[in-house]
Structures are given as C-alpha cells and as structure tokens.
C-alpha cells in the first residue's frame, strides 16, 4: 500500500465519523475516484459500520433489575448506617468513630496500663558480681592498678 493510500484511508476513517474537514474531504474524494483499492476499502468500512450499528440479538433477562436490587440490598444491610440520614455523612462518621476508638484505647492504656518499672540489674551483671573474686588482687603490689581498684571496690580511698 502506498503512503498516500494509507493517509487517505486514515482520512476515510475520519470521514466515516464526520470528522474530516471539507478541503480534505474533497481531496479524499478525488483520490477515491482514482484508486479502486481505497474505494473498496471505504465501501467495506461503510458496510462494517452499518453492520456494527445493527441491534444485538440478545437482551437483558426480565430478572435483571430484581437481581441487581437484591445485590444492592445485600450490600446495604452489611455496610449501611440507617440512623444516619445522609449517605455523604457516613464516611465522615466512620472516620470520626475510628479516631474516637483510637483515642479511647490510648486513654485506657494510660489509665489501666502497668506503671513503668525502674531499670533492674540484669542477670549478667549479677553473675559477674558473684564471680568477682577480690582475693585475686591480694598478691599485687600496693600501688598497682589492681590493688587500687580492689580498694575502691571495698569502699576505700586511693
């Protein structure tokens, strides 16, 4: 297919929907009068458009509206708040309710929660203190670091 034919078919597509400006429409007409392939293409598109516009063979069942209504009722009974008159207020009420619930939970936590415990000595520290044998420093010279440290531990002054 020539480039010009492609462009003209694009124009023919627009023309089919009434979107082609008159100058281009005239140019398209001239092209179609000279090009049998594009003319056939356009005729085929017109036939297709006519075929597409025909009504569909089937139609909705008589129970369609009833089934839809049942579905809506089922949803409404789950999530609606009938005591709220305006549906637009319902999301706002839902959010406010959630916020109040959160605040109530925080307040309850402060009121009834356990008081904070003071920091306790861990098991590791206790074990260290139990196994600390100051006798190990007894043989050290009096001015050594170990002796000074042992003296400090026993409450003495350097």
């Amino acid at each position, binding site marked *: 297919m020539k480039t010009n034919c492609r462009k003209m078919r694009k124009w023919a*597509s627009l023309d089919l*929907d009434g979107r082609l400006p008159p100058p281009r429409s005239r140019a398209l007409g001239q092209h179609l009068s000279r090009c049998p392939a594009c003319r056939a293409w356009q005729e085929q598109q017109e036939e*297709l458009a006519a075929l*597409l*516009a025909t009504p*569909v063979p*089937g139609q*909705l069942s008589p129970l369609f*509206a009833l089934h839809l209504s049942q579905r809506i009722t089922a949803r409404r009974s789950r999530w609606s708040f009938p005591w709220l008159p305006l549906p637009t207020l319902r999301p706002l009420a839902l959010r406010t309710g959630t916020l109040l619930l959160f605040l109530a939970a925080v307040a309850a936590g402060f009121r009834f929660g356990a008081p904070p415990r003071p920091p306790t000595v861990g098991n590791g520290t206790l074990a260290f203190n139990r196994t600390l044998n100051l006798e190990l420093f007894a043989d050290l010279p009096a001015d050594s670091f170990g002796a000074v440290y042992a003296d400090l531990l026993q409450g003495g002054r350097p």
Partner: protein
Amino acid sequence: MPVESTDCELLRRVAGGDETAFALLLKRHQDKIYALIYRYVHDAAAAEDLCQDTFFKVWKYARTFRGQAAVRTWLYRLAVNTCLNYREKQRIRPRTLPLTADIQSDGGQADDELRAAGREELLQQALSRLPERQRMAVLLASFSGHSYEEIAQIMDVSLGAVESLLFRARQNLAAQLRRPEKK
C-alpha cells in the same frame, strides 16, 4: 405533566440513596449498556453479569460523581472499565470460527436469516480478534454512536489516540474480512 429528570438530577438522587431514581436511571440506560457489553464479550450470560456489575458500581460510586463529564459518559466509562477488567481477568482467547468463504459458499442455498446470522458471526469473529482497546473504541464509535471527545473521556485517552485506535481497528477489521477473498 411532570418534567422528566435529567441524568444528573437522577444520579444526585441516587447518591442520596433514592431507589426510584436509580430504577429510572437503570431503565434509561440498561439496554444500551447491555448491548455494548454484549458486542464486546459476545456472551449473553457474561454480558448480563457485567451489566449488573456496571450498575452496581453506579449505585456504589454515585456520590463520587463530580459532574466534570456527562452522566452518560461516566456510565460508559464504568462499563468500559468493567469490560476491560473482565478481559484482563479472563484472558479469553478468540474462538475459531468459520471463514467467510465457507459461509459464502453455503450462502447460495441458504436463506436470508442464515446469511444474516453468518454475517453477525463473522463480525463478532473479527471483533474478537481485535486488541481490547481497539475493539472498545470501534464499538463506542460505530455501535454506541459516541463522539471522539466522549470516547476520549470514556477511555481516558487523547483525541489523537482515539483517531489512531479507530483507524487501526478498521484496518484490522478490513484485513480480517478481506483475507478469505484471496483464496
């Protein structure tokens, strides 16, 4: 004599939970929406389910309608998105249907009804082979009679994209329906 309510008024009432308004809106649009969906899925049961999904969404999301587009455009947008989501989930492969030549060769002895049915079937076959968005664009333009501006709003694309989608859809349809003639 009471003045007929506009779609916009009806939808506003639907947003307030008015079931009568919903019934009126449903009655006004259900057949056209169903016809579009049927053309798209070519399955009566699926089309009815999708139509129900569409109007259920209308009820559910009526209060989110801002009035930036016409109610009709908004309705079709819901229907189109429902269809495209359905296709995305189902990943339905196009069915293999008889070629044009087969139907035409029998057509010499067939009556008009059979010929019409054959044409309908061929059209559906050709449509089902189109990419989803091309199919929807051509149905909205040629079947539902929407303008390019409406199609752009419904499908959330630019006007240029609508032109392009329609042209490619028509090229594809022409190519598919021309193929048997080459035999």
